[in-house]
């Protein structure tokens, strides 16, 4: 049995005005477990807290009930008081007789009566309280960033700046991501490479950062502060530490008709290749599907020409196991496939391209050295048609497109159109739009410049179909303002394809037990207040893996994620919330109901041996809650059919005791 002390606060007249505090403390004196009851003007004051401490000592109290303002106000205060008096802080319960009683009820009788009942409920609960100790777990002071695009790069740099080691895992042979493929960036039109590649070099040169390029995360175990991660470093058949990136091997490689992924297949590369000149690491990679030496042992030229002796045809995938305190997901995006949009003849004509392809086409380092020409015949296009919202905001066609707005298309299309008109004033440029969305600093000005200064023809309407005819693309579209159907003969059509999360994100989310929405974007812990954290503790989100974003937004989020990581890594130990779920192994069935509803992946299962009442042993699957991961929502407690799952601080019997006390 608890020895409970009850302390009724007047809160000046705030409580005492509508509640007879004397009567309350008198009435509660007789409750089971109560050995001391008093009231005072301001319990939260120094004197009030002293009164509590003294009473704890004099009456050997084991539990404290404070009838006062909301626990959201002073629960922490009175818990500290309890600690100072030598009690466990979780032996304190607050009866909220101000916000939820004296301030909302005018009648003293009713208010007093209710205050007594609320006090009784708190006493009933505290009678069942047990001291709780938050768990502590050490923090491994190293971060993992998954994805080496601008988001991952920025996050890694910021974390490393704070002095913590960071590993960046990138599945391509080079970091850089989508931004490396871009030509110019809106709305300032500075060149993407000019601002990105210095950052890539910074990453390479930062001694706190390790880059695992051409690598994938294959397994994640553990929890915040201590994630055990397995990384598979795929064999690139070139010794990374030996290769100087001179490119001699590339030049001599006889297999030169391999579609170049970096240029989206618009030109070719060799079987041994460096994706682009500023690649980091600037190391060659052999494509095992294309290399003759690897396929049938014939060739070996690259090995012969490599002065450094970096070629290693026998290289194997390498498995790296490392522990991290925090993980940042920066897996980025891809444009969706245009294969299914038959109406735009993407599969039929080389001159119907996506915007990302257009970026490569206009990029000085691209397949045409920046000359805007038609991919089909290399001729200069005169009429260009840009189509917006291809696959975005597409509700009826889940198999084709996406329901959401891809956010960046309006701006990059304006950029494309403007740059085209700027470089080639002889062109006619049409942009078909549903809406033009330009929220952002200098964004609308940018769009208006495209229209007003560069004469881009924005048409409110949509392209219905495109038919290649001869060397023209017959474009049929609507102009809703003119209420006309337009028929244009275009030379080049650029589709603003919707963007989607990278396909590696879904399996990664499963490994991380991080939640995703139906579109495979990672869910943030709170859409407004915790936008860069995943609900899974220790997992943070950077860039477009969380939702469509442009570069400035991505970089800000990357920095925010980094600051959250730093905030975590500076701690030596993580102190958990002790109000976490606990599974009673004796009554747990191992049915997985709790696991299914846990938003944090805090529940795992163990096969445990039990000594049964009949003296046999039985191996049973039982739930085990990781207190470092559990946030204490209690969803599992209700999902559990056997009642094996309970929640510290809000135990079933405590809540029922409160119910009983209130309904008495």
């Amino acid at each position: 049995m608890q020895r409970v002390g009850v302390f009724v606060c007047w809160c000046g007249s705030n409580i005492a005005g509508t509640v007879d505090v004397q009567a309350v403390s008198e009435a509660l004196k007789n409750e089971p477990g109560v050995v001391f009851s008093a009231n005072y003007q301001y319990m939260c004051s120094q004197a009030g807290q002293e009164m509590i401490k003294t009473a704890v000592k004099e009456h050997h109290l084991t539990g404290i009930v404070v009838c006062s303002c909301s626990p959201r106000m002073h629960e922490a205060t009175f818990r500290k008081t309890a600690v100072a008096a030598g009690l466990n802080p979780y032996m304190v319960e607050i009866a909220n007789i101000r916000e939820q009683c004296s301030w909302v009820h005018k009648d003293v009788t009713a208010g007093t009566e209710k205050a007594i009942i609320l006090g009784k409920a708190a006493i009933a609960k505290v009678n069942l309280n047990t001291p709780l100790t938050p768990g502590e777990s050490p923090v491994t002071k190293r971060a993992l960033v998954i994805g080496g695009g601008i988001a991952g790069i920025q996050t890694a740099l910021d974390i490393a700046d704070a002095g913590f080691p960071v590993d960046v895992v990138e599945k391509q042979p080079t970091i850089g991501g989508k931004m490396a493929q871009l030509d110019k960036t809106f709305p300032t039109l500075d060149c993407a490479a000019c601002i990105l590649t210095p950052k890539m070099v910074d990453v390479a040169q930062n001694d706190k950062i390790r880059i695992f390029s051409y690598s994938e995360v294959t397994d994640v175990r553990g929890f915040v502060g201590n994630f055990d991660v397995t990384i598979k470093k795929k064999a690139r058949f070139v010794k990374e530490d030996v290769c100087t990136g001179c490119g001699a091997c590339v030049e001599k490689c006889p297999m030169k008709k391999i579609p170049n992924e970096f240029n989206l297949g618009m030109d070719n590369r060799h079987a041994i290749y460096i994706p682009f000149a500023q690649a980091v690491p600037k190391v060659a990679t052999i494509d095992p599907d294309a290399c003759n030496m690897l396929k049938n042992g014939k060739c070996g030229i690259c090995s012969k020409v490599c002065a450094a002796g970096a070629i290693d045809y026998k290289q194997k995938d390498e498995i790296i196991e490392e522990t991290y305190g925090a993980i940042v997901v920066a897996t980025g995006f891809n444009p969706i496939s245009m294969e299914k949009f038959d109406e735009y003849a993407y599969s039929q004509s080389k001159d119907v391209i996506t915007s990302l392809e257009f970026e490569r086409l206009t990029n000085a380092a691209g397949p045409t050295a920046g000359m805007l020409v038609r991919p089909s015949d290399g001729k200069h296009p005169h009429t260009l048609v840009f189509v917006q919202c291809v696959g975005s905001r597409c509700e009826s066609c889940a198999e084709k497109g996406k329901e959401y707005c891809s956010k960046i298309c309006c701006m990059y299309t304006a950029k494309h159109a403007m740059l085209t008109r700027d470089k080639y004033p002889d062109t006619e440029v049409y942009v078909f739009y549903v809406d033009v969305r330009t929220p952002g600093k200098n964004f609308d000005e940018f769009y208006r410049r495209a229209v007003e200064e560069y004469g881009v023809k924005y048409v409110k309407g949509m392209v219905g179909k495109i038919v290649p005819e001869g060397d023209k693309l017959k474009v049929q579209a609507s102009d809703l303002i003119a209420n006309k159907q337009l028929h244009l003969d275009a030379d080049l059509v650029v589709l603003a394809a919707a963007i989607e999360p990278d396909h590696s994100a879904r399996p990664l989310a499963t490994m991380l037990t991080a939640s995703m929405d139906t579109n495979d974007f990672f869910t943030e812990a709170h859409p407004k207040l915790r936008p860069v954290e995943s609900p899974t503790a220790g997992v943070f989100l950077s860039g477009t893996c969380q939702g469509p974003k442009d570069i400035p937004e991505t970089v800000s989020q990357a920095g925010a994620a980094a600051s959250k990581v730093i905030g975590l890594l500076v701690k030596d130990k993580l102190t958990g919330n002790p109000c976490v779920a606990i599974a009673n192994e004796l009554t747990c069935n191992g049915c997985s109901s709790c696991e299914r509803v846990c938003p944090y992946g805090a529940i795992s299962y163990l096969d445990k041996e039990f000594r049964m009442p009949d003296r046999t042993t039985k191996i049973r699957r039982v739930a085990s809650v990781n207190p470092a991961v559990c946030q204490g929502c209690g969803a599992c407690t209700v999902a559990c059919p056997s009642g094996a799952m309970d929640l510290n601080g809000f135990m079933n019997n405590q809540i029922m005791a409160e119910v009983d006390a209130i309904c008495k």
Partner: protein
Amino acid sequence: MKHNNDLREEILRMSGVDTAKCMKCGKCSATCPAYDEMEYHPHQFVGMVEIGEIEPLLSSESLYKCLSCFACVDRCPRGVAPAKVVEAVRLTAIRRQGANHMTANDVPLILETDTPPQLLVSAFRKYTK
């Protein structure tokens, strides 16, 4: 223009289309092969039904210019199905002309030995909604 809400409801019910889903992109009209023949275009059908401005549609030749090729239904990103709206307005016009509500009892009267069953099916489809 007096907006007719009852008629609007009726047309929405008949067509099964939720015109509020339209984001006014105009892809239906962009796609329409009969566009130039029409006074009111597919997106206008959707838009005008949405605001209940249906009388002009009912008296427009456009009703009969729609080929029911369903290209707009296929292409619409929002699943609005403009052709079904046109069909419903057309049906409303037909009903007003009296050729409305065929019942099974009427069948024996109009049935001839060589009437293809397909005809009956499509007649029912048209006149009994």
